[in-house]
């Protein structure tokens, strides 16, 4: 979202040709600022304004005194980390497979990873209901064995994991591709086993990219509404996550309560954004370093003399 820095115009008479006339620049900038203010700044600020409109005390009571709200916050804090953990495992495995091996169906797998982005979350939720719900294929068997998936925690985790599936893998594939397999092969030749290679060589190389994927994945997991709405059955105090709770409170005309929960989600989003920006710089450096490293012979410091 940060404004692009304008390219540095060369000094001298050429400069004026590079810039648009003032008459065009000022309105354009104003339109840009107005759009950002109207669509982003005002609504976000309003969330906090509404939440705190009855004072800090009421805000706090709205969050803490209502057991259903408390449960919703707790549930989100369970579902999101579990989904993220599952996706870290899946993402690393998928990125490893795609970047380190050539196999039939490799491109197909890459496309498949993106599928959850393309499918509407509501449809995703419905898919799980049709599989694991009482009327679904596995419903009767699950019921007979006393396993609850739909309208229960496993369903929430399943739906959230599905929707956030691409984030970690998508982030890791380019990083691992840029780094290449050379260091892993070197570690192998030095006698390292599979896990040693992963922990000592692969993970340190991809850690910033991985963290970036985790942050994006987490943000999406906490905010997930559509898929979770379908699989949860939104039972207050049982399967309501924070976004569902926001909607329910809003439907009950409890605006301060609704906005109080919304403000927490928004704060989490803002924190995510900050973390994302700082990490983006690090990953960019990581990829740049990977590129420079395999590049042609070019000593970095002029005083490093050859002493063969």
């Amino acid at each position, binding site marked *: 979202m940060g404004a692009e820095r304008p390219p540095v115009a060369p000094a001298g008479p050429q400069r004026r040709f590079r810039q648009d006339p003032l008459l065009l620049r000022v309105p354009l900038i104003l339109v840009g600022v107005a759009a950002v203010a109207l669509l982003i700044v005002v609504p976000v600020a309003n969330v906090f304004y509404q939440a705190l409109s009855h004072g800090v005390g009421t805000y706090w009571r709205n969050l803490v005194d209502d057991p259903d709200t408390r449960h919703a916050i707790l549930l989100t804090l369970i579902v999101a980390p579990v989904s993220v953990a599952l996706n870290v495992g899946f993402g690393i495995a998928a990125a490893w497979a795609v970047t380190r091996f050539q196999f039939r169906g490799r491109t197909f797998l890459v496309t498949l990873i993106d599928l959850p982005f393309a499918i509407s979350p509501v449809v995703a939720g419905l898919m799980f209901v049709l599989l694991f719900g009482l009327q679904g294929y596995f419903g009767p068997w699950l019921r007979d064995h006393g396993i609850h998936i739909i309208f229960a925690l496993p369903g929430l985790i399943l739906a959230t994991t599905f929707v956030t599936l691409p984030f970690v893998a998508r982030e890791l594939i380019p990083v691992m591709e840029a780094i290449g397999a050379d*260091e892993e092969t070197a570690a192998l030749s*030095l*006698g390292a086993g599979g896990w040693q290679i992963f922990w000592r060589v692969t993970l340190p190389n991809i850690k910033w990219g991985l963290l970036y994927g985790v942050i994006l994945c987490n943000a999406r997991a906490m905010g997930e509404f559509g898929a979770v709405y379908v699989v949860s059955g939104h039972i207050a105090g049982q399967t309501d996550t924070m976004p569902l709770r926001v909607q329910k409170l809003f439907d009950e005309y409890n605006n301060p309560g609704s906005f109080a929960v919304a403000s927490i989600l928004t704060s989490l989003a803002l924190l995510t954004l900050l973390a994302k920006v700082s990490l983006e710089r690090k990953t960019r450096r990581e990829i740049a370093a990977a590129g420079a490293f*395999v590049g*042609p*012979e070019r000593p970095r410091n002029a005083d490093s003399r050859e*002493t*063969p």
Partner: protein
Amino acid sequence: MSIAVKNVTKKFGNFVALDDVSLDVPGGSLLALLGPSGSGKTTLLRIIAGLDGADRGSVLYHDEDVTNRSPRDRNVGFVFQHYALFRHMTVFENVAFGLRVRRASKSKIESRVRELLHLVRLDGFGGRYPPQLSGGQRQRVALARALAVEPGVLLLDEPFGALDAKVRQELRQWLRRFHDEIKVTTIFVTHDQEEAFEVADRVVVMHNGRIEQHGTPQEVFDCPANPFVMDFLGNVNVFHGRVQDGKMLLGGIEMACPEYPHGESRAATAYVRPHELDIDRSPADASSLRAKVLQINPNGSVAKVRLESEGSELELNVEINLDRYAELGLKPGDLVHVAPRRFRVFIPEDYAI
């Protein structure tokens, strides 16, 4: 430790990278695998290291079959073309890696790494990161890292490929001296014949997944086994003619060729290196060729003369020493006589290439 490769075949899809290759490497020797790109030399090196598996055939270390052993159990040191240093580790940690994964004691790691950094002349560089080093320094870190686990075999894949000419030259000589000090069986891959001949005890010339010739640099250079080796080892003049009754006929001239005493006439190709041709003002004997001087390039220790033979319009490259050049007083356009001192004849049918 000696190494033996027995009847190894390796295919990548339909491409035959190695075709029934066998090779013996005596313990303690320094051997060069020489060949153009795609000749299978790197594949052979990786199979010896255990980084790739052979489709057929076996690899023996000191008469012990290691074909099915993983690289970690083969105890090899491998140096990669682009170094493949661990970029997030310091030089010290890079060198220590092999010892750490083998759970060596702290004090042993400390002393061994110091010793190796000293050996590769990088004392005091332990705290640096790979991107802070020059290419030659990185190469030596890679070497120290490979040597840390005291390998029985040292394998180097195009070790000087990514370095500039001067550093390359220095590192070559350094590797030679280094090998004489540590005496580990060493195999390195290169496509640069000069490099192979300068550094190695033994040279293996590869082409299309096969070994064309194996011998000391002297043997390979003086007696190339076939036209490919002759051609690959550099600059050579090629004459097409016929052999019959122990003579080779090339246009108007005749040369003795006792290897082919047969009565039937066969097409043959003669190869002569530039320094094996003599230039004279007057015809020496029946084997001299009349030619016109096109260009002269007195370059360093020799004068390189480009000529065109009369009649056949064949271009010849000749190298003569500077004294001879001064004595002859050659100028472009002069008509002279060119005679080979040595040549090698190959019958093309015997070497379908």
